[in-house]
């Protein structure tokens, strides 16, 4: 329906009504938008609820006990506000600046009233978060988030300093953590108020004093959970700068794991509980370390003993080798000697003669196979050798009335000097042997 038709089709007003109109709603909506935008721009305070984000805007309701307003904020305004992550949540106390606005809608989209927010600040706890966030950026820009993390931390400190509340549960938790590590060294307690932002100076002094105590190798700063306002002391700029520049590593455990205070950012290590902080202060499990060291000592001893023993055995083997060789040769010599004596007794010469005969026969056979006149000559020569051997056979000599003399142990005695030296001798006759004693004149 075109506007002309629409104009023509406008119905009559309500009978009896004195009010002007009827007017077209779109025109009226636009007029309303215009009027609202003319209102004075103000700052409002309340709690933000039902926070929703779209691609272009952030929507929420600003409420207090007496009423509420739907609010909307363009994303570019939101970005300019640098509102810290986690600060703008349901229930957050916020201050908004802006003015009322009206979206007139259309035939296809719903109209809506909003308070158009051009600037927003999180107040209360959110404000603290925003302050912490600003300070964190400042410390980061000053390069103070790094120095503690670069400090070497001892695996087995002898002395640990602890900053905590004297009556808090954190103290027991630290002791429990150390007991879990089996650590029983020197513990220096620095008790300080840990409740509010006024405690920061005392905590700063405690940390400085502990670092000055000779032998303190690591400092634990511990506090149980609490509201951010309670924990705000640990976000103090002076404290954080002091910790960041300390030469002794600081292990922080402030609040629960969901809380993030500034000291967590500047410390060497941030832990979720005081027990974990104590364990981080002594990375080594002392009982296990004792077992490991004992095992190392045992392995060293084994290696040392094995190295010496193995080499000693080898040396002993080497030293025995020559003696064994000599003994072996000696045994062989004895055997040969025994065989020679036995052979002498049994007429070894005859045996030798027989062997010679056999050799001669073999030679003869080979000679027989040889051709020519030399064969007959060789045979005659062999016959002569055979006869000569037979003539020298001791048995035949003894049979002719000679005797063989030995020293009684098998060694043949062939001279008067040997006989004199032997003193007792044996005489072998053809039938038997007899003992004889050498008598000197």
């Amino acid at each position, binding site marked *: 329906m075109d506007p002309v038709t629409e104009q023509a089709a406008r119905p009559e007003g309500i009978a009896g009504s004195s009010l002007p109109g009827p007017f077209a709603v779109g025109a009226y909506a636009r007029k309303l938008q215009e009027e609202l935008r003319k209102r004075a721009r103000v700052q409002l305070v309340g709690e933000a609820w039902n926070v929703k984000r779209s691609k272009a805007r952030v929507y929420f309701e600003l409420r207090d006990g007496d009423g509420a307003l739907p609010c909307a904020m363009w994303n570019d305004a939101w970005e300019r506000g640098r509102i810290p992550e986690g600060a703008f949540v349901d229930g957050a106390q916020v201050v908004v600046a802006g003015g009322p606005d009206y979206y007139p809608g259309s035939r296809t989209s719903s109209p809506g009233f909003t308070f158009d927010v051009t600037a927003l600040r999180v107040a209360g706890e959110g404000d603290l978060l925003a302050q912490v966030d600003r300070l964190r950026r400042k410390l980061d820009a000053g390069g103070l988030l790094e120095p503690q993390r670069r400090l070497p931390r001892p*695996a087995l400190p*002898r002395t640990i300093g602890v900053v905590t509340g004297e009556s808090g549960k954190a103290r027991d938790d630290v002791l429990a953590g*150390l007991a879990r590590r089996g650590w029983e060294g020197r513990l*220096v*307690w620095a008790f300080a108020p840990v409740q509010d932002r006024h405690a920061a100076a005392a905590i700063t002094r405690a940390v400085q004093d502990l670092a000055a*105590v000779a032998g303190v190798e690591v400092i634990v700063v511990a506090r149980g959970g609490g509201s951010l306002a309670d924990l705000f002391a640990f976000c103090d700029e002076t404290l954080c700068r002091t910790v960041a520049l300390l030469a002794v590593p600081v292990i922080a455990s402030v609040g629960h794991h969901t809380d993030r205070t500034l000291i967590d950012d500047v410390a060497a290590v941030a832990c979720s509980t005081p027990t974990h902080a104590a364990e981080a202060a002594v990375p080594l499990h002392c009982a296990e370390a004792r077992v490991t060291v004992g095992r*190392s000592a045992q392995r060293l001893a084994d*290696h040392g003993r094995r*190295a010496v023993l193995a080499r000693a055995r080898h040396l002993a083997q080497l030293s025995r080798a020559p003696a064994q060789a000599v003994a072996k040769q000696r045994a062989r010599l004895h055997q040969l000697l025994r065989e020679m004596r036995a052979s002498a007794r049994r007429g070894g010469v005859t045996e030798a003669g027989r062997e010679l005969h056999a050799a001669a026969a073999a030679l003869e056979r080979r000679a027989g196979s040889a051709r020519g006149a030399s064969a007959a000559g060789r045979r005659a020569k062999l016959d002569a050798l055979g006869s000569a051997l037979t003539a020298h056979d001791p048995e035949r000599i003894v049979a002719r009335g000679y005797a063989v003399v030995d020293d009684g142990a098998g060694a043949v005695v062939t001279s008067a000097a040997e006989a004199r030296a032997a003193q007792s001798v044996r005489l072998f006759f053809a039938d038997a042997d007899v003992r004889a004693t050498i008598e000197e004149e």
Partner: protein
Amino acid sequence: MSAPEQTYETATSRLEEIIRRLDSGEAELRETLALCKEGRGLVEFCAAELDAVGQGLQELRLDELVARLEAGTARPGEPG
């Protein structure tokens, strides 16, 4: 320049190195004996370090240390 101070970490890491070398079986007798000697020294150092934190927890208060320091009876590093 003085040698870097021996710590529990440096001692145990050198000890592991020594045992690895001995386990390899490549060390000669002279080296083996030298490594064993060095290792025994390291074991003694580590055992002494562990003993130092195994003789019962000693708890001190910083405020008392500071008070004694101010009274001139002891340095903070040498309590009692």
